[in-house]
């Protein structure tokens, strides 16, 4: 078990999230991709903390906790926007929401 393995897992997870966010047109799927990317970042924080020479320094843990909190806020606002857009234009496709004021 080396740091490489964990970093490779997190890289694959990030690439999956990026591919989802770029290629899907449904706004909820884009949000799911973003959540996957945030999870990959958190995995990196934890991995570098676990493999550090000074694990009593909790910076990695703290970063992961704050990142989870920010991700929760981001998901709430993102889904609220999706619900509002759906109410206005009856669609959750990102392409359909092309008017700034409609």
């Amino acid at each position, binding site marked *: 078990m080396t740091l490489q393995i964990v970093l490779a*897992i997190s890289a694959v997870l990030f690439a999956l999230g990026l591919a989802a966010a770029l290629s899907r047109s449904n706004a909820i799927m884009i949000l799911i991709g973003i959540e996957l990317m945030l999870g990959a970042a*958190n995995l990196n924080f934890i991995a570098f903390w676990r493999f550090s020479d000074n694990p009593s320094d909790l910076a990695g843990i703290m970063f992961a906790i704050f990142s989870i909190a920010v991700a929760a806020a981001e998901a709430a606002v993102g889904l609220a926007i999706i619900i509002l857009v759906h109410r206005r234009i009856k669609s959750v496709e*990102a392409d359909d929401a092309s008017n700034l004021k409609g």
Partner: protein
Amino acid sequence: MTCELFKTFIADPMKLVGEWFVILPAVVLLLSAAAAVVVRNLIHAALLLTLSFIALGITFIALGAEFVGFVQLLVYVGAVAMIIVFAILLTRPDRLTKSGSALSGIGPAGGAAVGFALLAALLAFIFSSPMARKPLPAPVSAPVAAIGEALMGDYVVALIAIGVLLTAALVGAAVIAMEDKP
């Protein structure tokens, strides 16, 4: 006996079940995430995403960060997955949309190409870096008491800031999603 086994497990999961304890949830994590990305049905995608959140939390626990693992399980599986499912149910397409259709610009092939390009670059860096070949150090633990003291000590400003951010974001989300006044 069982209690001893449990104590060993919490103190050092690696010793009991080897590194499979990290590899196995990680494999589940990657498979469910990949399935969530490619599956057409939105509800299936949300449920697979929940499974990948659970596997990610178990991976955190396996790496010795129990507190973050349980926070991950509570916040993501308990809250984020729930509101994603709610959002999907509230925004059921009224008309037949081209489900899973591609974004006009880049498309699934383009997205996969960008993902693979990034993955290749990242893996090249990871496997060429001497730092990343570091073996696993002795088991570490982050006691909850130490985390609490750090949150109330060194990181107290960040804690207050995140409280303000969460309050503002959730009030903002409620205002955004509120019915328009007549």
